[in-house]
């Protein structure tokens, strides 16, 4: 595939791998966090971590939008889906995320009309095709997907679609990063910045990471060479004693972001005072809700949403795993109360989360040290 294969060239990968090896200080252990779930996926898919020296460790960040949705919000969604005459729409991967009382997939099997869509516009289309029923879109994601939800709401309002509403679970990336960085026991040396989010917000919002917390941050693309390149850029900063935001993904990310997208978000959304993150607890000003001008399209106002709060079991230590303080197997509930079949925290929900990966591939991970 043209314009894709170029960024997956194994020969160039080996060259970069050699450069990385030449940049690291032997004996020093590096922990770098890739913030975005998309990066985690690429790292896993291409085996990128296999090309890194043993003393460079990648830690998966909190940036998987599906995994961070707390159980209570899933339960609220399920309650909404069971409302009579509701068509409940969401992205496919959301359907398997368990709340305290099952998944949306199970709600569908119980008779709820749950439909998978690929874009919020599909949900709006369903609403227009079924004028005698209510269509609800369960919106999730960071600033990457929020603009498309915003545009859909603007269109629904302009066209006066009376039977469409959105249950908004959009979150923003900076507050959870700040929460991580605030922690005194953080063991991270640098950040691979979220490429997709940055296409919208730009690189500037990440300047606080080097400025206030002294950690390098490199915004990266999603192909394996992008990721290796970004890792090299972070390690070079550390080696040269620099600490700044750099943009590896210049072919897509403008430093100032996408003004149009930011404008539509500002019109449609406003910050919630706080929002709960699975495994991480409440983080202030980290979630979005519909602004007053769009209140009529807010599913949480239109329906009696129960507002379920399911406290994460105290023993869940996702936060510590994310901060790199403990390994997955050191968590008190790992493999017992928390398994891929019945996950508690975000790290176990996604198959690529640190805990799920360790649960599934732990033995292999050990053996490859020996191979």
């Amino acid at each position, binding site marked *: *595939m043209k314009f*894709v294969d170029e960024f*997956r060239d*194994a020969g160039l*990968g*080996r060259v970069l791998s050699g450069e990385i090896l030449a940049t690291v200080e032997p004996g020093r*252990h590096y922990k770098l966090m890739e913030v975005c779930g998309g990066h985690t996926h690429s*790292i*896993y*898919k*291409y*085996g*990128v*971590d*296999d*090309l*890194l020296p*043993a*003393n*460079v*460790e*990648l*830690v*998966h960040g909190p940036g998987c939008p599906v995994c961070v949705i707390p159980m209570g919000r899933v339960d609220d969604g399920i309650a909404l889906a069971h409302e009579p005459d509701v068509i409940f729409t969401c992205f*496919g991967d959301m359907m*398997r995320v368990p709340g305290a009382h099952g*998944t949306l*997939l*199970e709600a*569908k*099997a*119980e008779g709820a009309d749950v439909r*998978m869509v*690929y874009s919020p516009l599909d949900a709006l289309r369903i609403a227009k095709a079924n004028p005698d029923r209510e269509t609800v879109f369960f919106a999730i994601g960071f600033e990457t997907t929020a603009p498309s939800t915003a545009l859909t709401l603007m269109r629904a309002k302009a066209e006066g679609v009376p039977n469409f509403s959105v249950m908004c679970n959009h979150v923003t990336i900076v507050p959870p990063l700040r929460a991580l960085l605030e922690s005194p026991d953080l063991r991270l040396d640098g950040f691979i910045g979220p490429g997709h989010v940055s296409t919208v917000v730009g690189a500037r919002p990440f300047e606080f990471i080097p400025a206030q917390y002294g950690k390098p941050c490199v915004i990266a693309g999603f192909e*394996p060479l992008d990721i290796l390149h970004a890792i090299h850029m972070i390690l070079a900063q550390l080696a040269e004693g620099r600490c700044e935001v750099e943009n590896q993904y210049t072919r897509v990310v403008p430093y100032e972001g996408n003004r149009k997208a930011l404008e539509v978000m500002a019109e449609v959304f406003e910050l919630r005072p706080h929002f709960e993150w699975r495994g991480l607890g409440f983080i202030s000003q980290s979630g979005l809700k519909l602004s007053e001008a769009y209140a009529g399209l807010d599913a949480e106002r239109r329906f009696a949403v129960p507002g379920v709060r399911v406290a994460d079991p105290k023993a869940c230590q996702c936060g510590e*795993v994310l901060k*790199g303080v403990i*390994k*997955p*197997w*050191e968590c008190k509930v*790992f*493999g*017992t109360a928390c*398994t891929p079949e019945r996950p508690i925290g975000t790290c176990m929900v996604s*198959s690529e989360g*640190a805990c799920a*990966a*360790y*649960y*599934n*591939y*732990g*033995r*292999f*991970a*050990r*053996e*490859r*040290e020996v191979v």
Partner: protein
Amino acid sequence: MTSGRPDAPVSDREQRILGIIETARAKRPKFRDERITMAHGAGGKATQTLIEGLLVPALSTGSLEELGDSGTVTIDGLGLAMTTDSYVVRPIRFPGGSIGELAVNGTVNDLAVAGARPMALTVSLVLEEGLDATVLREEVEAIAAAARAAGVEVVAGDTKVVERGHADDMYICTAGLGRLDERATLSPAGLAPGDRILLSGPVGDHGTAIMLARGEFELDAPIASDTRSLWPVVDALLESAGSAVHCLRDATRGGVASVLNELARASGVAMLVREEAVPVEAAVAGAAEILGIDPMYVANEGKLVAFVAPGDADAALAAMRAIPGCERAAEIGEVRTQPPGMVLVETAFGGRRVMDQLVGDPLPRIC
């Protein structure tokens, strides 16, 4: 990954936890779900739990336990293979085929990969009230044509009609009977470290064709289903390599990745796949890229995976390639000992990863 690069030797506690996980994973899964969801039909972990946790314990007295594509019975010294399958694909027509053709080839292929020459089929039709007779006529024609092409006779059948809304146009159930070929000694237990993994052609055509035929993606690509009888290629494999062919599998629902995982688990061996060696049509690779799916997990309806002793692998591969439709057959990897039960991939980029069982399927009702 946090787990991937331990910086200290394995502690006792970690060792113990790994042990607990391994014991839990090795246990036969228990079927605890309260309702059937679409995931139970997707061919991944939920399907496995349904089969191994409910069906096998309740029904098995022998041959079923092996969970092969067909069961075998011996009657007065005559080895027979039997299988059955239901077809609920939506839409019933798609580029490269239709439900009628699929209903014949799918069942024929389950017999073929058991090393049995397909002989006879039964066909049950479940028709929806209101179905256009022209459509039915064409599907019956498709069944007849596919049966002729595969050299099987339809020997019995049944028809049922259900109320409108209770079936999508039509469902078809077929059962097949085949005669076990004397050249064949196929079994998951026959897998041996060193065996080469051969694949009969490009992967992902059928599932991708169905996905695009549903028109949900506003994507258009010249991709046709690969539905065809696999008996000719099985025949060629057995002729060229005989008992050196240790096991065959039909890579349908869940794709090649699921077949490899099932066998690795069943036989306690490991498999190593070289991603670069796996043939994928450019259009399928492009569609998979856009949709974010891995062609290794996408269904095929005319592709088999063969495990052949290393000394005979080249001859077997050459024999496969001589069969029409299998010109792009390839050796994609090999059987190993460590780590048991796991499938590893050497990615084209040069890293390695685990190719796991499918957890969910974004696309139900592909066959």
